[in-house]
């Protein structure tokens, strides 16, 4: 599909010198994304829902898993299962090597400096809570401030609200434009000598807006303020380089990255995490325990009390390996083409209003329909085999700002097709038939 668009621009350039340029570009252009091939890697997609082929457009809630991820988890339990970091036996050594290998895979994926900067957690929610508990709370004093935005997912909002309530600090909220973009002027205005932390989403799960994270980090660092980025919706769509971004913390969930549920990642700069107190006590997070004294382990074990989700980490590493085998630039171009195509087709529905119109959105199309409530849209679509998300998307402050109780949301992954967009649009026509 993106090959189509690419050919178009090549044709325009075919005259004289431009033809040469086009030929050179052609040689370096990634091959068009092969959707049919990747779909074969996701067996769950080949099923019928109410007698119709499944069209899965709820990828921002959770993504489907390729066979290689499912096999990695199952093989671990079939062949290598043991507890880690404690056995002298071979199985334990294999499990430990696989678990620590997964940490190294995540480090490379994010381009972090050291693997001890990668902490395995349950998901984005737990990662944010860890930082709120171990970094923010000990540092916050009355009248200190934490900067978030009005488009945050509740998991990057409530933990900060709780930290503020416990310490007397204040939450400052960056507003957005009507198109759903961060007001960067307001962001800059909010940064001051009382700001202890900036916590912002990289990509909005409700709007698809990609926030200018490099600028966000630069402006905060210019004032000595650390930055946490919620990358839950970013990593599935783009390469993220925490080294280049220079952010202080970065959080994401495995299940949205084509990996299993129950595993997620907190990246944190060692310079900060070394000084943070642990937040859960137990096995593995200690170096020695006597009746009088507990000495904490070093990073990352200090933040991984108890037996972790070993199989989950191994599954996540398999998901990363799968993504590494894809042409991610072509995949992103394919998703962008699907997003454009859907928005183009929705413009033929006068009763549909898009919610979030930032340029360069990451695979998300949120909308409301004057004739039907999102909940009814969701139910009718489900009966056409089309799975979407409806509701407030865990973004109630954002819904309030936009003046809607809820939206219907389509969210793409690279395995979605143009035909699926057509199926979705046909199903939406059914909704209008019924309620219009």
């Amino acid at each position: 599909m993106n090959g189509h668009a690419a050919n178009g621009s090549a044709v325009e350039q075919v005259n004289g010198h431009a033809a040469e340029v086009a030929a050179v570009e052609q040689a370096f252009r990634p091959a068009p994304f092969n959707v049919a091939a990747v779909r074969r890697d996701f067996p769950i997609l080949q099923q019928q829902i109410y007698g119709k082929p499944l069209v899965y457009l709820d990828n921002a809630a959770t993504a489907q898993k390729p066979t290689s991820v499912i096999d990695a988890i199952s093989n671990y339990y079939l062949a290598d299962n043991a507890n880690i970091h404690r056995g002298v036996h071979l199985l334990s050594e294999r499990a430990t090597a696989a678990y620590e290998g997964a940490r190294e895979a995540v480090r490379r994926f994010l381009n972090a400096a050291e693997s001890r900067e990668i902490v395995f957690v349950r998901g984005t929610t737990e990662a944010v809570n860890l930082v709120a508990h171990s970094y923010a709370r000990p540092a916050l004093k009355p009248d200190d401030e934490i900067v978030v935005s009005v488009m945050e997912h509740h998991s990057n909002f409530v933990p900060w609200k709780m930290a503020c309530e416990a310490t007397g600090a204040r939450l400052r909220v960056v507003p957005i434009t009507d198109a759903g973009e961060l007001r960067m002027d307001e962001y800059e205005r909010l940064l001051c000598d009382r700001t202890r932390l900036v916590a912002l989403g990289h990509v909005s799960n409700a709007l698809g807006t990609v926030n200018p994270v490099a600028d966000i980090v630069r402006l905060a660092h210019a004032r000595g303020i650390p930055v946490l980025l919620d990358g839950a919706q970013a990593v599935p769509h783009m390469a993220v380089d925490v080294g280049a971004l220079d952010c202080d913390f970065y959080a994401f969930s495995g299940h949205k990255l084509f990996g299993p549920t129950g595993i997620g990642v907190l990246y944190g700069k060692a310079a900060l995490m070394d000084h943070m107190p642990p937040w859960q006590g137990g096995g593995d997070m200690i170096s020695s325990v006597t009746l009088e004294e507990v000495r904490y382990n070093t990073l990352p074990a200090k933040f991984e009390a108890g037996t972790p989700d070993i199989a989950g980490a191994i599954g996540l590493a398999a998901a990363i390996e799968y993504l590494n085998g894809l042409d991610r630039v072509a995949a992103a171009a394919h998703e962008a083409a699907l997003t454009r195509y859907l928005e183009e087709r929705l413009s033929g529905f006068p009763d549909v209003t898009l919610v979030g119109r930032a340029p360069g959105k990451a695979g998300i199309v949120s909308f409301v329909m004057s004739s039907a409530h999102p909940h009814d849209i969701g139910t009718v679509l489900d009966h056409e085999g089309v799975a979407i998300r409806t509701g407030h998307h865990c973004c109630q402050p954002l819904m309030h700002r936009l003046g809607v109780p809820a939206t219907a949301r389509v969210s793409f992954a690279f395995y979605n097709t143009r035909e699926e967009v057509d199926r979705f649009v046909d199903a939406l026509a059914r909704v209008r038939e019924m309620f219009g």
Partner: protein
Amino acid sequence: MSDLRELYQEVILDHHKRPRNFGPLAAANHNADGHNPLCGDRLTVHVDVADGVIRGVSFEGAGCAISRASASLMTDAVKGKSVAEAERLFEEFRQMVTSGVDQAVEESLGKLTVFCGVREFPSRVKCASLSWHTLHAALESKDTAVSTE
């Protein structure tokens, strides 16, 4: 089984498009707000009760087709009934949309049985019962807010 037409019956679509008893109620002496956090729906039920009888009832607010139609049909069903009868209908309605009811109860529910299909749609049960919970709260006490959570 869970055919869409069983959920969105004609009567439901009709009450959704042209809700009855929709708007404020000047004589109301009991009011309650209901909220379904799952879909953001909010509605208000106004009731005018005298001598244990519901003389007037109305509702306001925005919601999905199921919650709006349910509120509309509910107001039709309880108007003129005693508070005790309304509470019994609430109980029967709740049973119908969760576990199902026998024929005798179906007869007692009358027109409200158009919502029996909701049982096949677990995610929509709260939509159908929001107005009833809100009516119940209104009857129990004055001016309170309820939530389906």
